[in-house]
């Protein structure tokens, strides 16, 4: 059922975006558990109004499931995946891709950084698709795919691999 090809996306752009894939944990006997993954589409959710955002102020929301916490922020500088006139509004999962610790309240807005993670100090670059700046995570921070409809910001999908709840917080 599975052959381990090199990820089809070779270039850095493709790798970080890695579009259109759902990553799953599957057993030889069949799929046993799915995790939210690479640019998976989900039912749209209205999360904020653009005109109400203040630069550097985090706005938290659950998506795509209740309990899956994300943070939306207007960075003030253009960011990968950013929306709005300055392409500076982004949203990210609040679950560290190292061992799943929670990242809320770690925004360093002035330098567009999330972290350090309170558990093991990984930091993520919010301008560059949540790529690891330093630390131990083996994947970028999952980014919420946003769309802008007039003043309404909606979450429409997730890009990246969200660490599941059951991972232990070492």
């Amino acid at each position, binding site marked *: 059922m599975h052959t381990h090809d090199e990820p089809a996306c070779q270039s*850095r752009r493709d790798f970080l975006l890695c579009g259109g894939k759902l*990553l799953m944990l599957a057993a030889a006997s069949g799929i046993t558990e799915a995790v939210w993954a690479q640019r998976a589409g989900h039912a749209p959710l209205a999360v904020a109004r653009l005109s109400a955002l203040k630069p550097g102020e985090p706005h938290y929301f659950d998506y795509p499931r209740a309990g899956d916490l994300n943070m939306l922020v207007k960075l003030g500088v253009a960011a990968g995946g950013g929306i709005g006139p300055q392409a500076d509004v982004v949203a990210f999962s609040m679950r560290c891709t190292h061992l799943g610790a929670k990242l809320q309240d770690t925004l360093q807005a002035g330098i567009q950084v999330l972290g350090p993670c309170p558990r093991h100090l990984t930091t993520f670059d919010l301008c*560059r698709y949540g790529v690891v700046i330093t630390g131990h995570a083996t994947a970028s921070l999952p980014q919420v795919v946003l769309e802008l409809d007039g003043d309404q910001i909606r979450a429409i999908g997730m890009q990246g691999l969200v660490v599941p709840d059951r991972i232990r917080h070492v």
Partner: protein
Amino acid sequence: MSEIQPVPLPPQGAEEISTACDYCVVGCSYRVWRWKVGAGGTANTAVPWANPSQHNIVQWQGEPHHVLVLPDPQAKAVNPKGNHSMRGGTLAQKCYNPENKTRERLTTPLLRVKGELQPVSWDTALDIMAAVSKHVLKKHGEHAWGVKAYSYQYFENTYAITKLALDAIGTPAFAPHDKCANSNDAAGLDDAGLEAFAPAYEDWGACDVLFLSGTDPFETKSTLFTSWIMRGETPDKTLIFATPHRSMGVAWAEKRGGLWLPVIPGTDTLLHNAIARVIVERGWQDQAFIERWVAKRWEVDQGYGRGTRNTPWQWRTTWGTWQSDWEDFRRFLLSRDEHRLEDAARITGVPAALIERAAELLARPRADGTRPKSSFMLEKGNYWSNNYMNSASFAALGLVCGAGNRKGQVIGRGGGHQRGMISASGNPDWLSPEKHPGRRKKPLNLDRWLMDGQLRFAWVFGTTWIGAMAASDELERHIARLTRGSPHQPQQATVAAAAAALIARADSGGMVLVDSDIYPVEPLGTRYADLILPAATWGEADFTRCNGERRLRLYNRFCDAPGQAQPDWWAVQAFARRMGFADKFAWRDGNDVFEEAARHSRGTPYDYHELVEQARREKVTGHEYLRRLGGDGIQTPVWRQGNAIAGTVRLHDPLTRQGEPGAFRNKLLNAFNTHSGKAMLLKTPWNFPGWSEFYAAVQPRLEKQELWITNGRINEVWQSGFDDIRKPYTAARGLPQMLFMNPEDARQRGIESGDRVRVSNDTVYVQTGLPLGVTEHEMNFNSLLAAGHIGITQGSFEAVAVLDPGMRPGVAKAGFNARGSHANAVSHAVPDPMTNNYRYKLGRGRVERLDASAEKNDLNGPSLKPRGLA
């Protein structure tokens, strides 16, 4: 949701195999789940969650198998509950799988014929090597036959390599991967009687104050930092960092009341002595410890009835410079002007208030009279800048604070690589043409020997050599000249023809180069080697070694090696048999090597002799016994306790029990490693000419707008770079080479984050010729220069600038040993005359902007943010 890229879960019954990480010194425990591709069954959902970088498909006994390689969720000792770094977290991706980039592994021996590498059989390769070696040994002597080898890549291999080089062939031309000579690392620790790896991880976790010199363990020992230093028995501990770069661990510590001492490169000795002086002036030293554990005058001078000449610090120099006792050391601290706060602050660049505060934190007794438990960790930023004096003064500072032999009060190295060296023989130093002035022989500087054309045959094991050594560009020019620059190049792939050409090269002053590795090494293997031998590595054979707390584990085989790749011990044995040493090399398997090496481990910190004895009593092999101990293994030295064996938490601790009466006793367990069992306080005068002349010569030249160019380890690729360039995420997220610059230094040069820069030094000093020290000062820099033994060369490298306010002004830092960008090219190949070790961290250079890198404005690219963002 149409495309699915699954990471499979193992079925019930998938095999579980314990191992430990291949990379850094911490040596986290890992577990491999392996099952056949296509195997059915119910999923084992108890297996920890795995992400795509923790899965691969390997060959096992010729059949494709899934493997998950995960930090051991049951780990108790090193990485409790399965903590990991980015390096270890992606171990699965290092396993050979021709479907991904590991297809670049070497799978067959290669011979360079008419300038091109082409596959040959092991027999052909080894026959050529033996024919050339026999000729070189006969005509040019054993000095002309050399080895440059890792010191860490498993006991089986290092034992075999040293048995060949130092024993069977008996050459002094031998150097480990990180040094130009087979010398001590942190020699000042050794001379103080401190084993560098005496402490246990629980000690780093149990101190109240931790002084870290020349290292940020967040960068280089991630799990030691995140599982022990950030946590451990005293999670509220205070950290004091002496380093020019405020990286993440430093920034985190500062936020929690710790200190950053932004020391000017090379001045650590004075910083240590200034802190010690404050402590002694205020009477904060641990007098009870000093009375009990620091050698007194007569104990300093004793030595098996042979006087002090048998003591390393006496070999290193003439009488009276270093040795001391408490009263003498106290006078030394208090009498010298440069130890005063204001003078020390000026020279070290560390504000006086910080020096005072460090002294208070480390040693001021509390109101109730108790002392803070202080520990002291150093690494290469310390001892690869002023090798002897930095490590000796560091040891003295720790001893004054009462550290060295108690839980939470320890002095040691954090470590670089794991501890995988069991030497089959003492270095045949007596054959070395180098010597200390008026004193003992000292180990041979292999780089200088090569540059001087004395080396005719070199076998390299698992190291880049060029990028790893100082004055890299100059070393490369010589290697190029001696190999590809020779008119004698094999034109046919037959043993006779190739050997004849290579012998002609050796006889005409050239060098034959053999490179054993797992990947083609750029440029040593790809451009210069005549023969390349494919090595089997981690996971492909049963191997053993210790980690940074002497924890011995079996690194189990769980997949097939690619093609004809073989463990290095096998290649060494096959060669040795052709050289007529068959009787000394009669191993059937890796376990035979392991058991033989056990005898040579006795008396060392890595003594596992009793483990092999116990295995014999239980009628299993040594490897098998160790396999049963799993991922937590056992800490060496191993000693016998009734019908069982026990390990050793820390060395030098008088409370450590050991051994049955009459059993072999390892002195290291309960005492310091000196004649008296007490530690030595060593004086380190700042104006010692073996140091001060060199330091004056290598200062950045303001008229050339030079900066200090130091180099250091980068967390995400440290010790795993050879694999990381083939791991998709790790390769994509990082720049190939970074130069961290203070923003003001960058602004003055018109440099922004993301710009490509060239770093160049037009005066790189290289020691040349065969200077012999007879009188006291002859091996010091000015005397060498006057005698024509200092050559002037150039070096440069390119990097992408990252502006980092945590970089001390006047200092820029590059990643160490990056592929294609040798930061060591701008550092000087003039070793510390005390130890024959380079001072890699003291490079200098102009930094010039070239252009904007591709990554500068690419939002899909790696981050250009600084590292210390706490």
